[in-house]
């Protein structure tokens, strides 16, 4: 009986359990950790000393040419700037006084602003070269926005730089906010400085790249003279430093009258922090002073 049932129902089983396998699939997951690489290497001494022991050094100042070379590699668009800072043991925005030689008397002040340090960069900020307009408003960027101008001449009659000739004082944020980026106002005389890049996004930055793959254009490739400039500027900078005490030692480069961008906020704040240092009759108290320069390489914000 069971067999008969099997026979009768055999046809009903014909279409059972057909597991057609028309496709076989295997998946592999690819993960990518794209870490922001912002590498800034600095060549040169960790400590740069300015020893003012001769009178001419007070007059002319001391220049440290090529004291540091900055090399940048970045996977993202970036800005590079320098910030003049101290611990503020005298006052914010003033150099730290490590020792007081007690030679100053009542007129000797120890409020030497960090903006007394001047920087000079080569080559210029590529955005300045391109006169990019969008970073500081409608105004095309000028060399007030970087440190590419030559150090200003000191006038021997006035013991001051020619009026508004100075344009190399270091950007000096408040020590409590050392990473505040320089601001570009678009107003002549009120710009703060970048070494590369600028304030703002979109085109106000240097695109990611590296000095490693950059040609310095030593030659034109055909045996002739090259341009002598990086093909893609923005990844390699030679930095010079200068401090001019002046006589009397009032550090005249930082005052508004001597600076083309003397109304920049931090420059004005540092000048205010210096108090009466630049007032006739006052001078910097002899001693050992210290400050530091923080080079900041940041993803463009």
């Amino acid at each position, binding site marked *: *009986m069971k*067999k*008969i*049932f*099997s*026979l*009768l129902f*055999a046809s009903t*089983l*014909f*279409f059972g*359990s*057909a*597991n*057609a*396998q*028309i*496709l*076989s*699939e*295997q*998946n*592999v*997951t*690819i*993960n*990518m*950790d*794209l*870490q*922001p*690489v912002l*590498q800034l290497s600095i060549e040169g001494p960790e400590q740069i000393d300015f020893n003012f022991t001769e009178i001419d050094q007070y007059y002319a100042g001391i220049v440290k040419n090529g004291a540091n070379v900055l090399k940048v*590699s*970045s*996977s*993202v*668009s970036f800005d590079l700037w320098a910030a003049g800072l101290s611990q503020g043991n005298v006052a914010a925005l003033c150099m730290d006084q490590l020792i007081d030689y007690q030679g100053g008397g009542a007129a000797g002040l120890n409020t030497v602003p960090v903006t007394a340090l001047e920087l000079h960069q080569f080559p210029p900020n590529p955005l300045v070269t391109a006169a990019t307009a969008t970073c500081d408003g409608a105004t095309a960027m000028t060399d007030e926005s970087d440190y590419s101008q030559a150090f200003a001449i000191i006038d021997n009659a006035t013991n001051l730089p020619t009026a508004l000739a100075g344009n190399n004082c270091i950007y000096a944020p408040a020590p409590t906010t050392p990473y505040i980026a320089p601001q570009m106002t678009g107003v002549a005389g009120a710009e703060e400085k970048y070494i590369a890049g600028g304030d703002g*996004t*979109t085109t106000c*930055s240097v*695109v*990611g*790249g*590296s000095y*490693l*793959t950059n040609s310095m254009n030593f030659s034109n490739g055909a045996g002739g003279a090259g341009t002598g400039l990086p093909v893609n500027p923005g990844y390699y900078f030679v930095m010079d430093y200068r401090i001019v005490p002046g006589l009397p030692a009032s550090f005249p480069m930082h005052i508004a009258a001597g600076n083309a961008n003397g109304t920049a906020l931090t420059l004005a704040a540092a000048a205010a922090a210096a108090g009466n240092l630049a007032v006739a009759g006052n001078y910097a108290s002899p001693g050992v002073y210290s400050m530091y320069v923080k080079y900041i390489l940041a*993803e*463009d*914000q």
Partner: protein
Amino acid sequence: MLKNFFLISMTFYLFLSLNSKGQVLELSSFQKKIVIDDFSEFTSNPTLYAATTLSFTYAAPLAGHWDLVAESFAFNDNTYSTQGTAAAGAADPFDEEDIKIRAFNECNTPDIDYDISGASPNINHLSSTLFRNIGATGTEKYIVGNLAARGNTPGDIGSPCAGAPINSTGSPSSDPQSHTFRIDFELDFSNFPATVMTPGFYTYTVNFKAYDDANPGTQIGNTVSFSLEIEILPVLQMNISSLQNIDFSFSDINKYISGAIKYGATKMEVNSNLQWDLTAIGSSFTNDQSSGLSPFWDIIASYSSNPGGSSNIPLSALEIFQNQPNPQPGAGAGARDYSANFTTPPSGNNNIEVATGYLSFLPVALSGSNLEKSIAGSIDPLFPSSMGPGSYIIDGGGAWVREQFSYTISYRLTPGLPATFANGAPLIAPLYANPGSYSMRVKFILTEDQ
């Protein structure tokens, strides 16, 4: 309903029983199924031993002698593929002639040389030792006896029944050596791999009948039917040896410039009884959910609070390299596979194809993909091509080369500086890739050639 059906069945059974009184053919089972689902079964002829046992009771008051035949009664197919023997116009389709049968008993009765031809077993009969087909539907072949009236037939020489009559009265219980037959089946896959054995569900029904030896062609007793169900499944086996996750970490500037390579990270091995294609598809959730309008990596995390770049990293930026060229790349121009060497900067010849879909794939034009590149074979509708059946395990004796069934895949990502993944599309430039954690997937698709 079931009750009525049961009564009808009982009536049918009683009818058969009454008409076969004294001469009853019986089967131990009426149906068996054989499933072919492993590649190794295609390299030999699959065999089903003891599919059923045929027993014959020929008892008093009958006299005389009997012959026994098997009839190729019906063959039905329901194929799963258009490839191979079932294809229109196929020269030699898989059918009842590719299903062979063997009827064994202790007397070696089917091997008796009835024609006195000197050839044993009798080549026109089913054999006790060899598999033979019955033939086209409607054809009968003798298991015992032949068209001639031979009277008493002694057992085969050398068997325990030699000299003893075997085709007279007897029963499975009293004469099991002569009145029972073990029925074996064999599928003739000798055409494989030259011809694909079309996957499908096949049924083959064999009738067994007894004839009066003195009156050839005159049936005595009942007919019993046995159905063999054959399911040939498409075997598309892909063994993959790979890390589930392949991680690229770009933390050094030199990796951005030169890229990062994961050599031989994935190895694939293929067995297939069909013509096949193997291809790699790059995709992501973002890509699938946008139907290809956003062919970008999935963003797992962003490392920038105010990113100035783009997080739309093109999927096609992933490059893969296969260890040997595509043996059957198709005729189209340009890169047809991923065998081009990695170059710096990336040439674009190794960019992974980007597509959407799960069972069928649409190339994503924004990625520059057109599915022209495959690892083996081609799914390019304009220039189709396919790999033949075969296996990575052994060489096919000239039918296939096993190396062509095994591929090793390397991966590369080259962000570049700035990190624009310049080989991918759509372009990120003039922006750059925002730092972050990203993910995508590579689907390795082994599919029946269409």
